[in-house]
């Protein structure tokens, strides 16, 4: 297995890093976190750079990139904070659903709009009683002539209320069958009448925001349906592996920043007449942190490479997601400890990494669900 980047991949990484360093300055990130502002300016730069087109075929305006290109992007965006990858990934992953399950007409219409920044996309699946148990959802869409009428409530929907957003909504279209057979995927522009979005207050990840969405007789034309009726579960599953591995690359990027910042501090900060990094206990903490981040990166790359070869990678991806998120949370906690009292102050970045990291063992499949999946691939039937 070759973990080295080729020339093109190196160029992609370097260009992206330079661009992000220029625009996503520490002050910019702090302000957007503090005020809960979506990073529109950064997103616009991605559009200009063509980044949104990476995984899409040339005929729709894309660059035919593969999963490795995606994890390179994920790690670079994640370096500035996990939410940057979140903003990018939401549009791209949902547009990939259009690519994989939409009609030719939908692909021609929506994919170029995502690539050129005219629209953004977000996902909405979780409900108050349907979290890890996603199949328990109750939001329904009922056919009404050529349209669908949607009613229900969704929860924890990230970046749903941003400009020109199209919500990719999973809801029940047949309540008489098990969930795998009765869910359908729709595109619902966020400003459609009857859609009410309420931002929730969260511990972290405040740039993108997490929302509750109410659907009250929302009328959507059948043209907004993606894939076949009652086959939405397949849409959801088909993208899941790519989503998880790219998400994990964002964890790796952000965790690396945590180590970099803690290391820098340990070299600068003097106590007892010497840099605290010269104390064995602090040095060992940093050694552990870098080792775990590197291990996360290796697990993530193994999953990506396995996928790039076209193999099933359920175990590899689940392991990478589990270890990557737990590592991110752990190193952020250690980073807090290394920065001491300063880390607890809002004007330092470490508290933000810690707050952001805390979501990662929960979202995109909790650590508990990843463990179930891994154990199942080992021949266990976990109940």
């Amino acid at each position, binding site marked *: 297995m070759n973990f080295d980047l080729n020339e093109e991949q190196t160029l992609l990484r370097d260009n992206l890093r330079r661009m992000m360093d220029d625009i996503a300055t520490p002050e910019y990130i702090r302000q957007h976190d503090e005020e809960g502002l979506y990073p529109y300016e950064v997103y616009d730069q991605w559009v200009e750079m063509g980044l949104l087109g990476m995984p899409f075929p040339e005929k729709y305006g894309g660059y035919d990139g593969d999963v490795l290109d995606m994890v390179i992007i994920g790690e670079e965006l994640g370096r500035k904070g996990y939410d940057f990858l979140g903003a990018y990934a939401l549009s791209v992953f949902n547009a990939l659903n259009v690519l994989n399950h939409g009609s030719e007409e939908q692909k021609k219409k929506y994919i170029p709009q995502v690539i050129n920044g005219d629209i953004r996309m977000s996902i909405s699946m979780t409900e108050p009683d349907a979290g890890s148990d996603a199949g328990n959802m109750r939001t329904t869409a009922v056919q009404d002539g050529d349209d669908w009428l949607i009613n229900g409530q969704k929860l924890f929907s990230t970046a749903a209320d941003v400009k020109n957003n199209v919500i990719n909504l999973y809801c029940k279209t047949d309540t008489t069958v098990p969930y795998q057979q009765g869910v359908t995927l729709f595109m619902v522009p966020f400003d459609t009448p009857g859609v009410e979005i309420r931002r929730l207050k969260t511990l972290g990840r405040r740039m993108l925001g997490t929302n509750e969405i109410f659907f009250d007789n929302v009328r959507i034309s059948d043209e907004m349906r993606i894939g076949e009726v009652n086959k939405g579960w397949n849409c959801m599953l088909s993208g899941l592996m790519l989503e998880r591995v790219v998400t994990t690359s964002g964890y790796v990027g952000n965790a690396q920043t945590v180590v970099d910042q803690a290391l820098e501090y340990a070299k600068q900060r003097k*106590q007892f007449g010497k840099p605290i990094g010269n104390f064995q206990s602090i040095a060992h903490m940093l050694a552990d942190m870098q080792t775990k981040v590197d291990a996360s990166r290796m697990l993530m790359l193994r999953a990506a490479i396995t996928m790039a070869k076209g193999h099933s990678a359920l175990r590899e991806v689940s392991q990478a997601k589990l270890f990557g998120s737990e590592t991110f949370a752990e190193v952020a906690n250690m980073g807090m400890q290394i920065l001491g009292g300063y880390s607890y102050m809002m004007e330092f970045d470490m508290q933000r990494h810690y707050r952001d990291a805390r979501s990662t063992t929960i979202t995109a499949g*909790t*650590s508990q669900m990843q463990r179930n999946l891994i154990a199942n691939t080992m021949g266990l039937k976990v109940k």
Partner: protein
Amino acid sequence: MLSFKLDNELELFRNDVRNLAEKEFAPKAAQLDETEEYPEENKNLLAELGYLGMLIPEEYGGSGLSLVHGVVFLEELARVCFNTALVGQLYLNGPAKALVELGTEEQKHRILPGVVKGEHLIAISISEPGAGSAVTDLSTNIRKDGDDYILNGTKCFTTAGIEATHSMVFARFGNSKGAKGIGAVLVEKGMKGFTVGKPELKMGGRAVKEAELHFDNVRIPKENIIVEGTPDSNDGFKRLMSSFGPERVGNAGMCVGISQGAYETALAYSETRQQFGRPIAEFQGIQWKIADMATQLHAARLMVYRAATNLKNGFPDPHDCAMAKLFSNEMAQKITNEALQIHGHYGYCRDYPLERMVRDARGFSLGGGTPEILRNTIAAQCYGRTFNQRRS
């Protein structure tokens, strides 16, 4: 025989505090965090009911209760509202307790009755930008000038530095180095040359902010000297540090309290939250989390009660204090985080108290002697000698 049970009187005391905390403080806990406003009303109520002076001897207007009462009190406050507990800690175990131990009779009669009534608040001011864990590097300087003293320097992370009427400031007498020459003085609000900087916003305990204190040729009357440092001795510093043993015990007690709150919330949630057609409490993965949490909580509580009861001359054993605070600090992080995890994404949202508890609990390990410094203390005790941290 050893008995690890609290006696009846203490259990009744706990019930009183719990009822009060649930009725008066729990409903406002989220709001205090959100608005970051000092819990003035809660403090007034605690003063009115006599709790703020509970550990202060009766001759100064207090009730002279035991350190264990203080722990139980802080536990119950922290269980529902950490910000209120933090205020309690300032009145019970921090500088007020140190003043009881180290102050002159005149100082105690002058200041402590006001503490009991909630009119005086003494803040503790030790850390400086360049002297955190390496506290003996502090450079705030005090020198004699006629009958008075002149104080110069800057302190940071002074909890409730804005609200405090008095600050107990660690300072260096003369041109000494290291622990030698360190003593403490009382600086009063309004003294010329004393200014309080803007609040330092923090991740948790947000209603009780920290501040920088600046001393620019502040004239301190000799009546305000608590411990006078002498350049050839570290005696003053030692006496000061040992008087802060109760603060460490109180800090550990708050860890137990906040963890108890998080544990109870998670336990109840796991019984009501249904996924895959059954309460998540039915899954072994969740059951074991709860079992681990309960075990760690139990261990921490025993360590804290031991530290609060194993007294010499009224003060806890430094070794007990260090181990109780170290274990409880790290336990509180683990338990609040596990409780959040059991709540899934609900735990990440502010409609539930978990994310607040995680933020609040994170601060325990960053002040009042970090776990790293406590490990140094404990190791020194284990080896029977201190290790020079400055050795290159």
